[in-house]
Each structure stands twice: as C-alpha cells, then as structure tokens.
C-alpha cells in the first residue's frame, strides 16, 4: 500500500463545544484513489469533511495530510497546501459570473493562470460557453461542474467532495461521478461523500461507512458492493426501486 495522502485518527469534533457529532472517527485515503464515505442522513459525513477541511474545531484526535499534522490548520491555509473542499450546497458564488468564479479560484495560480483556465474550460465545455453568465443561472449539474472546476483551479492534491451528485438527474449524477474518476487518473485523490451508493461504490476504491458519528464498516469498494449487510441497508431499497 502506498503512503496515505490523508489520515484521520480518532477524530472527535462538532459544531458547539462539548457536543461532539463525530466520535473518534478514523479514516485513510490513498493517493490517486477515490475514498468513499457513506451513511444515513445525519450520520456525520458532512461534519467529518468539514472537520478535515478545517472548518470545525477538532477536540480530540489527529488529522495528517501527506504525513504532516493539519488538525488545527485554517481552511485557507489548507487550500494553499493542496486540499480543496467542495461543499454540499452553496459551493459557487451566484452573483459573480462563471468567469469571475474561476478567476477567484485561480488567484494563486500566478503566471500559470491563463493556461490553467484554458485547460479547465476545455475540460468543462458547458462552462466555456457561459463564461459571462451569472453562476446563479446555471443548472444544478452545471453548478456542480463549476464547483469542481473551481476546486481544480487551485491545483489540489486532495479534493473533498460532499455529495456532488445531490439533486442531479441520474445522467448528470453519473457524469459528475465519472468525472471524479477521470480526475484520479491525473494523480488527484478524492474523498467523496455520496448518497448514490450503488453508483459511487462502483467507481470508488475504498469505502468507509459512518452512522451516528461513528465508524461502522470499511473495506474495498467492490467487496462492500457484494457485502450482504451493506447491500441490505444501503442498496436493497435502490435495487427494488430500480426494478
């Protein structure tokens, strides 16, 4: 197994002091892999992502990134170190144009910005055509792509994605997830929270299941896909719904 890119050990965190939502949660993500986090609503998935992104105080445990302790590092400093966070909602600036959104994310790119912008627009043709439109006018799927493009603009080593397919049509959801897969081919690691468990498990490398703020099962994604218990809890309803 190659060196972990991200490791959380016994992380306890929450929104208000003395009321932890996460209880000693641990997780490992490896380079150029998709590490999936699943679990019921309110399990603490978004909370975990936010704690890693430096948006919530961690009261116990440790988070390391590339071997360095980042437990108490500010979000903007983490971004500079190569961790991009795509929030579950409100992940673009609606009153700015698409181009301005991207420019904002490219501010740190310096002289490399024009080339990086060109590459992003190539990668997301839907955005290229709409550069001068307000981001608020984009469709749900286009917004997710913009949010991902903005994350990529910071040239991250690790992207934290919180339900990028939420609210999208099955086709758009599939596109977003497949895009995530292509990103890992360029060496980016992805920590992904998803409700489209079935689809996501097919794309992911490894998966952690959370419930009530605690680790449940974890294992290789394909093994969990065929795991009876997981199947019953998370996949059964969907299979029946699809039938």
């Amino acid at each position, binding site marked *: 197994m190659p060196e972990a890119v991200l490791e959380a050990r016994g992380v306890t965190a929450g929104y208000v002091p003395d009321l932890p939502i996460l209880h000693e949660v641990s997780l490992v993500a490896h380079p150029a892999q998709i590490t999936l986090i699943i679990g019921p609503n309110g399990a603490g998935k978004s909370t975990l992502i936010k704690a890693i*992104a430096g*948006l919530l105080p961690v009261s116990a445990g440790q988070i390391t990134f590339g071997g360095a302790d980042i437990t108490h590092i*500010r*979000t*903007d400093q983490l*971004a*500079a170190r190569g961790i*991009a*966070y*795509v*929030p579950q909602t*409100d*992940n*673009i*600036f*609606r*009153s*700015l*144009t698409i*181009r*301005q959104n*991207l*420019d*904002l*994310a*490219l*501010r*740190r*790119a*310096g*002289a490399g*910005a*024009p080339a990086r*912008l060109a590459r992003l627009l190539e990668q997301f043709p839907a955005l290229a055509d709409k550069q*001068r439109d*307000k981001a608020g006018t984009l469709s749900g799927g286009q917004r997710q792509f913009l949010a991902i493009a*903005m*994350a990529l*603009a*910071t040239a991250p080593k690790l992207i934290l994605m919180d339900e990028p397919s939420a609210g999208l049509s099955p086709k758009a959801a599939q596109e977003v997830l497949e895009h995530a897969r292509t990103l890992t081919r360029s060496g980016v690691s992805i920590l992904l929270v998803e409700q489209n468990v079935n689809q996501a498990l097919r794309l992911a490398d490894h998966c952690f299941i959370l419930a009530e703020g605690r680790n449940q099962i974890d294992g290789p994604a394909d093994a969990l896909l065929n795991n009876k218990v997981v199947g019953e809890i998370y996949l059964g309803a969907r299979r029946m719904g699809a039938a």
Partner: protein
Amino acid sequence: MIGVISYLVFFATTASILAIAVLGLNLQWGNTGLFNGGVVAFFGAGAYGTLILGGTPQAGHLGGYGLFYPLALLGGMAIAGLVAWIVGLLTLRLRHDYLAIATFGVAVAFENLMRNAEWLAGGAKGVRGFERPLRDALGDGFTYNIFFFLVVLVILIATYLFLERLVASPFGRLLRAIREDEEAAQSLGKNPARVRLMAFITGSVILGLAGGLYGTFYAFVSPQDVLPTLTFQIWAMLIVGGAGNNRGAIFGAFLIWGAWTASGWALSRFAPIEAQLYTGSVQFILIGSVIVGMLMWRPHGLLPERLVVSQRGKTPSA
C-alpha cells in the same frame, strides 16, 4: 443673490464631505457587509488627527505640530486607519448585530475620551488654533469657500473613482464572494478575516478623510462633532441612497443633508415657537421615519446595488 450662492456653496461643501464619509461606510457595509455602528469614531479620529497635527501650538493639550496641510490630512487618515486596525482586530470576528453594538460602544468611548482627556485634545472645549490652508493667499471670504468647495469636490470624485475601481478589481470580487459565502471562499484559499479587516481599515481611512476635511472646514472640532447623531445621519444617507452603490451613496448624502437642512429651516420658520425648542428632535423623527419607510418599501435604496455582470476577456490576475 451672493448670499444664496454662498449658502449653496456652504451646503454643497458639507454635503460633499459627508458624501465622502458615506462612500467609506459603503465600502464597509455595502460591499463587505460590515455593520459599523461607530462611524463617528473614525470620522472623529480623522478630524482630531488632522487638526492636532496641522494646528498651531496649543497650551494644555497635544497639538501644534503645524505640519504641512496635506501631511496633516494624511496623518488624520492614518490615525483613523490605526484606530480601525485595532478595533477591527478586536471586533471583526463578531457578526452583524454584535459588531454594530461593539463599534457603537467604541464610538461612545471615543467621544468620552475626547470630552474628558483634556491633555489629549482639549476636552469639552475641543481643538482650535487651526490655520486653514492657503488662507493667507485667498482670504476668509467667498473666494476661499469656493476654492475649498472645489478641493472637496475633487477629493470626492477621486474617492468615488478609487472605490469604483476597487470594487471592479479582483479585491472587489473577493469582497462580494466572501459576503455571499464565507466557507466557499475559505476553501478556495481566501482568508476572510484578513480581507474583511482590509476593507474595514480602508473604509475607515476614507471616513477619516471626511473627518479631516470637516475639521479643516470649520477649523475646529469638539466632542459635539462626534455624537452618535452623525453616525445615524451617515447611515441614513447610505440606506436611502442605496447600499452597495457608490453613486447611490453620494446621492443619498446630498438628499438627506438637503432634507435635514430644509426641515431645520422649515421648522424654525413655520413651527410654533413652543415647538422650536424641539426642532432637533423633530428632525430626528423625520429622518427616522424616512429610514423606516425606505427599509419597508425600498430596502435597496433609491439607487440599488448593480452587480457587475461581466468583465470581458480579462485574464485572471496574479
């Protein structure tokens, strides 16, 4: 006739100075979302600073450094910025309502300090002994007032242009992004606390500039000039004109100052003698009603914020 013109010049000078202050507040509230409830503290820091640095020697309190006027004015602005820096570090982590209360408290503390610390700025008597720049050459009369008005007007226009460029610049975009969604901005590597502090200081320096000009105009400043009333008036100007819109800020300043002056005149002329004692209070009620009415029926002001639509073909700046 000359009386009317000279009154108009006097009116326009005061309104322009206030318009500069409203522009400063607009950067803080309109563009950044910072509720500065202590506008007069920064306005006052600029006024006191300018007069103390540029004034003639004083017995009993600081001052009399007799600096070359532009330096004194810049010094006043720097002092306003310094106060903003300290206040900002202490309070900017607070959200809207708490920030408003904290800054209001700062302004009251400032007024009390000025009123009581005689060694500092003359206490209740205020700071006098200020020679208006170029007075020897232009005299004290109408010519001087026209000249001073033109200088203020040029400074107002320069401030307006500076802020328009600032708002359209990447920094302005960043302000809007942070106002819209702080976490998303943070996750792109922005430091909202620092950006907000910069906007707060810049706005306060502009408030200090207005204060410095105000002090220069009257060649005098006292604790009476830094009462919460002024904060209230400047806020009214911004709300009525249109927060987030620099032209609205200037328009609001002239409109409210016009209404304030006119209502004062009308009350003193037509109100029954017994009511005249309360002219000031009646004016407050009128202005208060205007604010409430605006907030109810036209909450974005007469000239609402225009959100910049596009920046054609610009490459991202480093």
